[in-house]
């Protein structure tokens, strides 16, 4: 199995690569997508996208970014914010289509047709995947989005706010609540009970 190797890429590196790729569209663009991908994978996982769908979602977002790269304007915001917006919108669309698909599969099951769940066998029993599910399960959708962009996307509050269409203060407030809930969940039921008065 191929493994995603993460290179340490700073925000400035990405911005520089994006400008070079926009101008030349050659090897620079390939390097840009390679550099952006690991961060997008982490954001997608933090958004609660099922592990089996993450590679496709990220690839889809990268393809959309490739088509729209000429429209990227560094004056309007960072490259991470721009591509993060694409990813978040696609993740929302995916969540909607999954709800519809689940209803359709339920209907198929009621008439007795067999349905197979999509999965990555090597990851199905991975403890880390279960930890992600448990921790993200205690967050609301907006908390997940803020955590994904603010904590894992390494965006500042203003950038995350621009992507999500809320205020920077809202991002900080939601992130604080999310961190508290995650900490309670991480300590387990005993810790959560101790937190409550």
């Amino acid at each position, binding site marked *: 199995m*191929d493994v995603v190797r993460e290179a340490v890429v700073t925000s400035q590196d990405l911005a520089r690569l994006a400008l070079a790729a926009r101008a030349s569209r050659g090897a620079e663009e390939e390097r840009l997508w390679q550099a952006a991908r690991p961060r997008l994978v982490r954001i997608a996982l933090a958004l609660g996208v099922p592990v089996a769908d993450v590679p496709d979602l990220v690839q889809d977002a990268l393809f959309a970014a490739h088509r729209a790269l000429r429209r990227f304007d560094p004056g309007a915001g960072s490259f991470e914010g721009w591509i993060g917006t694409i990813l978040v919108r696609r993740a929302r669309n995916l969540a909607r289509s999954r709800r519809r698909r689940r209803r359709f599969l339920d209907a198929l099951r009621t008439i007795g047709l067999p349905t197979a769940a999509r999965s990555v066998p090597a990851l199905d029993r991975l403890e880390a995947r279960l930890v992600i599910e448990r921790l993200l399960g205690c967050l609301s959708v907006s908390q997940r989005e803020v955590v994904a962009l603010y904590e894992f996307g390494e965006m500042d509050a203003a950038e995350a706010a621009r992507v999500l269409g809320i205020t920077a203060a809202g991002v900080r407030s939601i992130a604080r609540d999310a961190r508290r809930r995650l900490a309670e969940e991480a300590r387990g039921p005993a810790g959560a009970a101790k937190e409550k008065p």
Partner: protein
Amino acid sequence: MNDERDGIEMLRKAIDDVAERLPAPSPGRRASAVSRAVVAACVIAAAAVATYRLVPRPAGPATPGAATMAAAAATPAAPPSLGVEVKLLRVRGRDVGARVFVAARAGTVVVAPAIERKEVARPVGAVVLPEGGVR
């Protein structure tokens, strides 16, 4: 403050773990030669059918029971026989095969588009002509 970050750090560790094990995206699959040939054949067939349908064709040779709209208007004497295919309808510049039926109203015949199954052919939305073929 550190306690508050426990959950985030645990989540970060788990996400890093899963991200490192995720399979790399597979390169896009290229269509095989057979698929491309099938698609090309379908496109050519569709173009041929569209051309056949759009190009106006000359009217066929006159038969004893057949008449064109113009002929029917010019010579009102001989009404077409019931059930005989005639070419009276003109759709998008083409003569369309039609059949003659007895109309619900007495004294008229109905020319309806010919369809494959004669036994269920019905004069729906058809041209109504007085008996004898004259409008």
